[in-house]
């Protein structure tokens, strides 16, 4: 109980977020979306303020809060929206926020590639299927969540455990002395850990396409070949599974 009260700064926003998600999940009748939205926003602000304190660079902090908070809010809107088309569009916003975080992590090529792959291809394909499947009408299975209490509890148990662990090694200044040694070793980049030789960026190479390409086709060449094989097999499988046009039209 003592440790629970000690870590109430993380566990209380998680509980608040669970209440918000449970309130907002689709159900019959009206949802208390004002209460749920307020609870969710308070939880997001509390958890980001606790786990990601401002580092002092105002531009970087602002961008991080914009993209991180945007990803979380849009993700919550996606899983709670009744209309599947809107849910797919919220997912596109989640993808864009994730790409912003990639940019902050000095991965511009990945950011652009993710925009092209997800927002350009996957979301459009999903919208195509949704519109194909909803010629008959709306509502039905999307207006009621399946087992909202059990799903919310299990998901937020997972989230609480993850955030508790993050906070455990993150806030070294508030830890007792027994914990102070190991997190301090982890909070700085460990120089004794050797990375793969071609993955080490040369001077000014970090995040550029040159460095990623050297790592991808140097250290991970076999993995690239395996990924190509997986793509080919997935293509064959999709063609084999997909319904034939002669058996009926969709």
């Amino acid at each position: 109980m003592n440790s629970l009260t000690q870590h109430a700064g993380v566990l209380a926003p998680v509980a608040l977020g669970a209440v918000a998600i449970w309130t907002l999940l689709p159900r019959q009748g009206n949802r208390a979306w004002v209460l749920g939205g307020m609870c969710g926003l308070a939880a997001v602000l509390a958890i980001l303020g606790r786990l990601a304190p401002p580092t002092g660079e105002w531009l970087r902090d602002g961008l991080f809060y914009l993209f991180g908070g945007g990803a979380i809010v849009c993700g919550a809107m996606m899983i709670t929206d009744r209309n599947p088309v809107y849910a797919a569009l919220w997912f596109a916003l989640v993808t864009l926020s994730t790409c912003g975080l990639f940019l902050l992590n000095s991965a511009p090529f990945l950011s652009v590639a993710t925009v092209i792959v997800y927002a350009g291809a996957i979301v459009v394909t999903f919208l195509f299927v949704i519109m194909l499947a909803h010629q008959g009408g709306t509502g039905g299975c999307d207006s009621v969540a399946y087992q909202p209490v059990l799903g919310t509890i299990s998901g937020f148990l997972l989230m609480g455990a993850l955030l508790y662990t993050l906070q455990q090694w993150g806030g070294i200044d508030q830890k007792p002395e027994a914990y102070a040694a190991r997190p301090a070793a982890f909070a700085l980049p460990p120089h004794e850990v050797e990375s793969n030789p071609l993955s080490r960026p040369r001077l000014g190479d970090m995040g550029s396409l040159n460095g990623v390409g050297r790592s991808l086709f140097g250290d991970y060449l076999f993995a690239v070949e395996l990924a190509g094989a997986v793509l080919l097999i997935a293509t064959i499988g999709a063609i084999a599974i997909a319904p034939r046009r002669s058996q009926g039209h969709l």
Partner: protein
Amino acid sequence: MIELQGQLAVGAILFALGAIGFLTRRNLILMMLSAEMMLHGVSINLTAFGAYHHNSSGQVFTIFVLTIAACEAGLSLALILTLYQRRKSLDVQLWSNLGEPDLPRLVDESAPPSHPLPPADLPHLTPAGAMPAGPKHLTKA
């Protein structure tokens, strides 16, 4: 120096939200989108650690995650189309009879009936007078 802890927190929250969406939504497509959101959380973690340790391995792993996500999307779309063709609905609960018949069912919730779309208010062409008679030399008197 990047804000590693905040990035990991965002990744963890996205992963848990995707898990909740996968468990509670009944639409097949939204379940797949929730799984993709879990992959987004993982990708944020990978790039954050790559930037933190100052090497390119995190970005390369994220490229592989992207590859697997594309494979998963293609296969799941094919499966969803097949399942939709069988049941004419995207409700995943319609497939709950695939379990063992002698095991107790957890819960048997049936979805409410779907409402038909309201009739579209399409524009009409105004009638433009009587049909003109055919030419005289082609019709029999």
